[in-house]
């Protein structure tokens, strides 16, 4: 890996890391979603600094170039992220469904008791 590549990669991973921390700090990102991002940027940083580990990993998965390993890693990361979102969205849709149903039932009860109240008021 050339020095230029190394510097660029370090900058990218540091930017991702601190940007994520900042988002969590400002409450714009929840902790549970930040973990995957932080984990990936730390892993990237480690692999760039300990280049021999990256080489070992590359030979382990049978890739030729270390950059391939990094790209593969980032694709894997994106896939994981997408799956995490799908799971979350499924859960959210289910919760929205339950809420809409609950709301329909409560609204019925509410309107019924309001009409009953109005009648009582009229009679008095």
């Amino acid at each position, binding site marked *: 890996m050339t020095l230029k590549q190394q510097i660029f990669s370090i900058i990218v991973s540091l930017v991702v890391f601190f940007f994520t921390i900042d988002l969590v700090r400002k409450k714009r990102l929840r902790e549970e979603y930040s973990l995957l991002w932080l984990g990936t940027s730390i892993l990237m940083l480690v692999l760039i600094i300990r280049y021999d580990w990256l080489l070992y990993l590359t030979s382990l998965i049978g890739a030729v170039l270390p950059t391939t390993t990094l790209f593969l890693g980032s694709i894997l990361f994106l896939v994981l992220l997408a799956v995490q979102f799908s799971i979350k969205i499924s859960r959210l849709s289910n919760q929205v469904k339950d809420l809409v149903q609950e709301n*329909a039932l409560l609204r019925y009860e509410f309107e019924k008791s309001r009409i009953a109240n109005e009648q009582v008021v009229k009679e008095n």
Partner: protein
Amino acid sequence: MSDTIVIIPAFNEEHGIASVISKIKAHAPDFDVLVINDGSADRTKAVAKEAGAIVLTHNFNMGYGVAIQTGYKFAHEKGYSYIIQIDGDGQHDPTFISELLEPVKNGDVDFALGSRFLWFDSYRPSFTRRLGILFFRKLVTVIIGREITDPTSGYQAFNRDVIKFFTTDVFPCDYPDADMLITLNLAGFRVREVPVRMFANPTGKTMHSGAKPLYYMIKMCLSIFVTLLRNRKLYRR
């Protein structure tokens, strides 16, 4: 309060709903009628109320399965013993509700499914639709080991046990037909088909249009597949 409630899921049915309700009221005056207004943009809610139905309203359109489950939850909460489920677009002939309810009320079965194919002068759906129905008919028949002729029918009647079962997460809200029958079978409910008359949809509006039938078929197959893979404990009552 009656012990039987007729539930009608409705999405933009302001033109057809009143006649469906009045036909039900004429045929079975003792039954309560519940319309689940599934986020309609038209006057469905007002029209149904005027016709004398109880109306529950979803804030936005959630789909057929969610709407009928809202009805089940209502019926369960209010302690109804029987549900009759009928479409709001006038496809299902309301004069058949007593025939449909009879085996359930007698205690012969837990769930009665209205079949258009067992009645001699029901309309014949389009060729592609029939092909789809035929496919699921064979599939369901093989899986549950009993002949089911109209697995996509939404004209149904069932008892309190099934109502309770359907208010849980087990109920397949996406497209509750073939999949639901298999779920019922896994849970050990007794299902029987009853001949009913169905008309062609007067408005021509359908849930299954465009590329949707293909999507529907794939999704239903997947749904049936994972239903069979699930732990049987889930379906214990």
